[in-house]
């Protein structure tokens, strides 16, 4: 059992949890993830680690309340316990002095990107950050991100704040040289970013979170084609060379269980309170 020590609503339906998990906190590194399960009947949900504090013995993660499990989780309060958390899982990000790094984050992945940016900064990089969301109301950690970045851009899909979409990056990439790009966010965004950096041959790392069950290399549902080879998102990743990822296949695989996920959420809505968690 893992006690929730802090709950914060960052934006509508986006929540931050800080959880007491000293063994996991001690081993966590930027880029790694955890798997949570809310109860015996629950599903295993992978979430990227957004922070850790060895002294306090806590880890932080941010999630979007979309499906049944994340909505159930969203109803949990400080002092309540999460049934099980496994982690840290996956390989840590490569953090060293690359030179100038472009960091692009979208949606809930803004949170783990903040951790990444901090680490890259400490390693001596010049960091240019782009954070984006569907609409301006969903942007969070703006000030924190801005404070850590050498340069900072905001983009929204509808243009309600900052740039409209990511096409402005074309000009940025045409006018200056980057040594590396890191993108974290929805698959469609990752694909767009990779399309933009490819002509400039900027090594582009994408953090993938394909469908997972065990998250430790057993089930193989998270398989991704990278450069024509089969890789497992959980143990070979979660970060891959974005220019080699078969995004079309990944997008199709992400949608495999959409009807079931919708059904599950719908039934839960009709059922009500969410106390069937365990």
């Amino acid at each position, binding site marked *: 059992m893992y006690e929730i020590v802090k709950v914060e609503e960052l934006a509508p339906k986006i929540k931050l949890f800080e959880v007491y998990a000293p063994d996991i906190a001690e081993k966590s590194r930027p880029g790694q993830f955890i798997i949570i399960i809310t109860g015996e*009947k629950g599903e*295993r949900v992978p979430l990227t680690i957004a922070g850790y504090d060895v002294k306090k013995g806590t880890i932080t993660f941010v999630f979007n309340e979309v499906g049944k499990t994340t909505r159930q989780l969203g109803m949990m309060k400080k002092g309540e316990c999460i049934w*099980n958390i496994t982690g840290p899982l996956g390989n840590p990000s490569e953090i060293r002095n690359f030179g100038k790094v472009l960091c692009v984050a979208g949606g809930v992945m803004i949170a783990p990107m903040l951790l990444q940016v901090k680490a890259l900064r400490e390693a001596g990089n010049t960091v240019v950050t782009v954070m984006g969301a569907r609409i301006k109301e969903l942007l969070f950690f703006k000030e924190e991100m801005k404070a850590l970045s050498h340069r900072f851009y905001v983009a929204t899909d509808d243009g309600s704040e900052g740039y409209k979409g990511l096409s402005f990056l074309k000009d940025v990439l045409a006018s200056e040289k980057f040594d590396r790009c890191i993108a974290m966010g929805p698959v469609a965004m990752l694909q767009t970013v990779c399309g933009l950096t490819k002509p400039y041959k900027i090594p582009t790392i994408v953090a993938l979170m394909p469908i997972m069950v*065990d998250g430790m290399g057993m089930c193989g*549902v998270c398989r991704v084609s990278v450069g024509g080879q089969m890789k497992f998102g959980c143990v070979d990743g979660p970060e891959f060379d974005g220019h080699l990822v078969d995004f079309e296949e990944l997008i199709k695989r992400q949608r495999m269980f959409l009807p*079931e996920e919708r059904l599950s959420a719908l039934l839960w809505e009709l059922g009500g309170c969410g106390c069937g968690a365990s």
Partner: protein
Amino acid sequence: MPKQPPEVRRHNFNEVALGYTEEQALEEADRCLQCPKPQCVKGCPVEVDIPAFIKLLREGKYEEGIRKIKEKNSLPAICGRVCPQEEQCQKMCVLGKVGDSVSIGRLERFLADWERAKGFTIPERAPPTGKRVAVIGAGPAGLTAAADLAKLGHEVVIFEALHLPGGVLVYGIPEFRLPKSIVQAEVDYIKKLGVELKLGYLIGRTYTIPELLKEEGFDAVFIGTGAGLPQFLGVPGENLGGIYSANEFLIRVNLMKSYAFPEYDTPIRVGRHVAVIGGGNVAMDAARSALRLGAEQVYIVYRRSRDEMPARKEEIENAEEEGVIFKLLTNPTRFIGDEKGWVKQMECIRMELGPPDESGRRRPVPVKDSEFLMDVDTVIIAIGRTPNPIIQRTTEGLAVTKWGTIMADENGKTSLEGVYAGGDIVTGEATVISAMGAGKRAARAIHEYLMSKR
């Protein structure tokens, strides 16, 4: 032994074999010849004193009977169900040479079920030795090693990566062959021996083995992490939707109880025409699960002939009775998807058997120009599992074979001092009981190591 009739059981996940009644058990026990030099014991990887427990059963001394089994075997209800007895103890039974051997497994199951219904008695433990052992993996090897070490007075902590203990017993073997409540009950028994269980700890990530020994205060480590990495065919279209590894399919069904979706949150999708690739027990388990999930047709597609199938005969028969269709000497060459990326067809090629290969079985050879298409909307690939590599990658100095298994001697001793290993992680994919045997031998070796190290 009474079983659920095939037409009923193919629609439910309840246990297929119902177990002996007391009368049947006594009758079967009576057939045992009580040989002066019993051969059956030689066939048992954990050395259960078979004639002695059968004698006690026969005399109606059930409590003493189960005690006798548990001197050697801490998981009798599990072994009584999933051991390949016909290849082990029962194969050696003298009666088998002239007719039917004694159904030792079913008698073991009878006593274990009797005890579980009544409530467990916890055996006495040796006085505490002050030594601590970390056991990695709560599968058959780890549970056995932990139980034996605890009985010897050591402090034992099991680290299990999944959120439930049991390893392959909970994620791999379906409910209809091994009810999960039974695994839980036997795990609870092991906990009552004083063993601590830490769930959700992936060793290699949360702690490495050197950290367990140097920082976490353990005097020895036993690695029983099994063979959990799925193998794929390596043919085009394998990443289409609807194509599962047997591990994924069985983890969803068994561990996550997807058959009870949406009551349980993890979904599974099974179409009308299911092909299971492979011929082992895992393939049979997957095929029979697919039937129970509502598939109309379920095929076992296997590249050799029936005689070479590695599955237990009993499981092949069970599958056949339930309506699984066998397509033998057939091998998939590619998968074809629909516009949504879901599998709709599978191209196969016919095979014939050539001379024996290194496994001693006749090598399947493709028949030229014999490709044909099968309409399928679900494919389950059950062609074997390889060792999980996380520990090997994170433990410096641990000797590993070219197959990725950990090098260990007969007693589980590895290249590192104080580090022992056993089960599928050493042998490659094998049986529950052979893993238990390895756990048992390692426990003995660890005990000797700890007691000699003052």
